[in-house]
């Protein structure tokens, strides 16, 4: 189980109804986390990975911040998650 700090910005807040939350998750990758969040917030995964494209949507962004490292924009959906990672979705 990993503890993740999730943050939501701009119009994503209208989907989640909140700016941020901490979650305990078994999801090992960004892709799996998006599926998990989709169950909580229906349509969430499709915002970031539209089914007809099957890859990250060009109009959205996911930033990953890991302890001791600078923040980076997510390029690889199979990027592994670690305990205490922070993710910013917008």
């Amino acid at each position, binding site marked *: 189980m990993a503890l993740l700090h999730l943050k939501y910005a*701009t119009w994503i807040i209208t989907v989640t109804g909140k700016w941020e939350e901490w979650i305990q998750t078994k999801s090992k990758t960004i892709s799996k986390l998006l599926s998990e969040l989709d169950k909580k917030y229906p349509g969430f995964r499709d915002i970031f990975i539209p089914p007809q494209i099957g890859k*990250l949507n*060009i109009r959205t962004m996911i930033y990953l911040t890991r302890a001791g490292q*600078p923040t980076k924009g*997510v390029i690889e959906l199979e990027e592994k998650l670690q305990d205490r990672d922070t993710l910013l979705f917008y």
Partner: protein
Amino acid sequence: MNEGWYGWNGRILRVDLSRSKVVKEGLSKELSRNFIGCRGINSKILYDEVNPQIDPLDPDNLLIWGTGPLDGTPIGMGRFSVTTKGRRMSISEGGLGGFFGPELKFAGYDYIVIKGKASKPVYIWIDDEEIEIRDASHIWGKTTWETDKIVKGEIGDPDIQMCYIGPAAENMVHAAPLISGLTHSGCRSGFGEIMADKKLKAIAVRGSGSVKVAQPEKFMKLFTELYEYFDPANVMDPWYLTYLTGPPHIFIGNEIGNIPTRNAQQMGFEHAKDISGEKYFEKYYKRRRACFGCFLIGQTSWYEVPSGPYAGTVGGGLWNTLSWGSLMGINNLPAILKAVTLCNQLGLDWFHVCYSIAWAMECYEKGLISKKDTDGLDLSFGNYEAMIELMRKIAYREGFGKVLADGVDAAAKKVGKQSERFALTIKGQECEIMPQRNLYVAALGLATSETGPDHTRWYPPYAINPATFSVGRLKEFGWNIDLEKAYQPRLPEGKGRLLKWLTDSRAALESIPTCLSIWRGKYHVDLKYWADILVAGTGVAFTYGKLLTAGERIMNIERAFNVREGFRRKDDTIPIRMQTEPQPQFHYGPLTPKKLNYMLDEYYREREWDLETGIPTRRKLQQLSLGYVIEDLQGMGIEVR
């Protein structure tokens, strides 16, 4: 309107303020083909007609207002450009939105070129063919908003369009810009100072004509396609959508270490939410605003503070809320909105004022200055009341305001004590809010901008996320960029080539003109489209290649202007703080001189500029049909290799 012209009117209005003389002359077709319009032609006129190394306050210095061939059509979106030789000797250029540019086109002119100095304050009234130089003694000293009201009242037409300066420019405050339509500000490298020196308070214009396009049906078809292509639900730039809501991405920027805080000592602000766009819309947003022809009514908005000490404050324009807040450690959004309004009314440059006050606050924090120096003001970071009071003092050169009124560099020289180490300027002009240590292409863009730090010359400052776009599609657009390298924000490699493409293409787009801010959603990669619509508008056979070459020509003529004034590679740099101080909170280091030099080398190589001096090479100048520049520079004893 002159026969044989489409898009352009083909006319320049020349005004000699010393002789109170007005002349209307034709625009050269060669000039319009090679430099397109707006910023491009302004730069060429300035290069040709302002002798090297004259004092910027010499009567022979020029003030140039320029529109472009598609101004007055919805494509132009109200953009126009103003250019002069600034007081720091460099070319001083900036673009504005609103309605003034189209109105000038409707009056029948593409350019206004002003020289000389009036013996007393004047304003120019352009009513189609009738031009008057009118006494402005009664509005000298008035704020821009008061000027707008008085002149419209005496002309008796609330729909005329105006540009003006405020008290700050009249008091020769550093970097004072031109203001138009109450809240549009442009040329933050001091166009207002030169206007004030010439005793020109304002220009008012009313036009009853229209813009004639070469192929009306094709133009409308392309325009419709563009409108559909624009579709904000399918933009290429994820930052873009955050802009639709007002103050730019403060909350997001804060999460990734992009928010200069307390004079950029830190890059994250603990009160970011308090000054965020989300908070703004919750409490202060009143209504949307737009420039002429804008698709996206609401790129900026009108605000009102409903209660508290700043109740009744109204205004527009929010790009700067970032710098007002975090840079001075201020989390009081009503005070920030008051400061934005004051800037527009007094005609102050946002970045000059906020970087000056932030620098003074750091001096105060470090004990380099005290209340004895600041007229009793407590300049602790976060003191918004002191900020408001100091703004007024700067505009009117009162007390400690006089120290800051000449800019951060001059203030640091006066205070000394190594305070220049945190004076955040480039080429003598205060930085913008771009995170130089966290976004290297932004740092390179700021360092190399001829007119001082100016984001519009290369915006947006990052490449498309390679995870979201196919390289094949980029090739279709003729976008020869190594996306994998260019996208990495703190990797020096790949930034020179990206910046060259960004600056050349934006020079061309700003000369058409169109609004870079609106179209940034599509990243402006498809210049082929812009060539097509320019052909339909003007009847001139522009191609993608010709358009990009025109952009490159503009970049080189501006460079040549600065080379004549003595600017070299050493001036293409960033503040010492950015080169030496890391950001441990966000785990990134300084942008070291070694990295900066690597990027400069790559950029100069892409541009074919001399690596040692930054002067364009003989080969490049000849290739761009700028052979006369070689003769000019050599005539001044400057070696062109």
